[in-house]
């Protein structure tokens, strides 16, 4: 077995939390059950990984087989990577039946015709998700297994999730190969990025609880403000305002959990509006400014701003449109014309 393969397997095993190693190796299926029995999974990870490498040596693992373990790890822990979303477009209306073998064949052929040194692995999962792992090399070097890219493609949808971690120069090639293999016409990057792959899927597949406009002439009397205290001696003076905030919040955010995003970025290219007496800029140029909101869970924190008394309800539509518009990167430019204001550009 190649030295590099051994090292790669060793490092991959070290990434896995100790309690998960056995299950992951079983999922991998490369080592037999009897072989797995011989490993003591209670020793320190260093030693476990050495034992695993030893057994892989006996089975003469190659890099493609080692890569499968990496896919399994990333499928279980996708949130360690940053994912971007891409959308493909078809030229016409023809819906062709998706053929997995054809897809794989076309994809590999396209990539290999441009770049000989690539390691490509496919793995299918029950939810129609196709995971592709690509390790990139150059015409003169072997593929770098530690900087592999991941692609997740749900064949019934035009959406592709990519976790790049590679040279930007290989990205067009990857996109091209995907478009060709899936019989689409072109592909564009959406302004949507996050560590949480499932949340990105929730947003583009519209799987989160959306606010359906229901006609509600009177506020629902049964709605209770979150029971802060059962003590009847405490009287909340602003109860009706609190109820209004809850209602507005619920209309905007819906009832269910929000998709998990870590940031929203707004690039402002608007004119600086100041008191004409305070002449800050002598040139009438757009004032370039970048506003970034970050949070471990951005949408939940936005949802809790008004009830916590930190912001007025309703919140700015620039913040609340994030799931509907399926984007968390915005460019705001000056609106040209009679009504000066700002509008969000695609």
């Amino acid at each position, binding site marked *: 077995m190649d030295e590099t393969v051994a090292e790669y397997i060793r490092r991959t095993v070290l990434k896995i939390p100790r309690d998960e190693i056995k299950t992951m190796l079983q999922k991998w299926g490369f080592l037999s059950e009897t072989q797995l029995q011989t490993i003591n999974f209670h020793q320190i990870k260093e030693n476990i990984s050495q034992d695993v490498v030893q057994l892989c040596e006996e089975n003469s693992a190659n890099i493609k087989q080692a890569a499968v373990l990496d896919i399994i790890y990333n499928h279980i822990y996708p949130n360690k990577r940053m994912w971007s979303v891409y959308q493909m477009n078809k030229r016409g209306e023809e819906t062709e039946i998706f053929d997995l073998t054809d897809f794989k064949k076309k994809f590999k052929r396209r990539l290999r015709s441009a770049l000989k040194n690539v390691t490509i692995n496919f793995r299918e999962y029950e939810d129609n998700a196709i995971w592709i792992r690509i390790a990139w090399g150059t015409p003169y070097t072997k593929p770098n297994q530690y900087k592999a890219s991941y692609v997740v493609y749900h064949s019934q949808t035009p959406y592709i999730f990519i976790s790049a971690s590679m040279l930007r120069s290989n990205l067009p090639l990857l996109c091209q190969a995907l478009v060709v293999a899936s019989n689409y016409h072109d592909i564009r990057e959406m302004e949507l990025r996050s560590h949480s792959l499932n949340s990105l899927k929730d947003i583009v597949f519209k799987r989160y609880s959306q606010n359906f406009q229901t006609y509600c002439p009177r506020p629902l009397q049964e709605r209770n403000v979150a029971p802060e205290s059962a003590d009847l001696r*405490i*009287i*909340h*003076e*602003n109860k*009706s305002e*609190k109820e209004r905030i809850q209602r507005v919040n619920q209309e905007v955010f819906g009832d269910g959990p929000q998709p998990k995003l870590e940031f929203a970025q707004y690039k402002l290219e608007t004119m600086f509006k100041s008191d004409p007496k305070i002449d800050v800029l002598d040139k009438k140029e757009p004032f370039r400014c970048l506003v970034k909101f970050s949070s471990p869970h951005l949408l939940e924190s936005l949802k809790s701003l008004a009830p916590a008394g*930190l912001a007025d309800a309703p919140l700015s539509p620039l913040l609340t449109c994030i799931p509907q518009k399926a984007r968390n990167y915005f460019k705001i430019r000056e609106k040209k014309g009679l009504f000066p204001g700002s509008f969000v550009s695609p």
Partner: protein
Amino acid sequence: HLATSLPLPSERDHLRPRIDLIAFMIDIKSKYSLKNVEASLAHVDASFFLGKVCFLVTGVGRVNYCSVEMNAIWKLGEVYCSPVLFCELELEGIRVATAQRLLRMLQICAGHVPGVSALSFSSLMRSSADE
């Protein structure tokens, strides 16, 4: 009675008993909270400032998250002639002790402690803070 800001909603005026003590809570982590308190102070009748107002500053345990400057708070206490109390709501011991202090102040302000008036008590508190 808990309120997020003043003035109090007028629709509940008839249900409200006499107010003996107003405790303005300022979260030291939020500039918005200080602004809100300053805006609300304008709605308080002058007679309350004779010992029936106090400022309660919360969140003082987390030094790194201070957003409000201490000078601004001291100044507020001075300008409105009212005592400033500090507490950390997240620690049960301090929470309980602060509640007991406020309760004692409330008893005095409501006139339940013979011989001590709200005004005399507040001037007592102020002079000890100056030392």
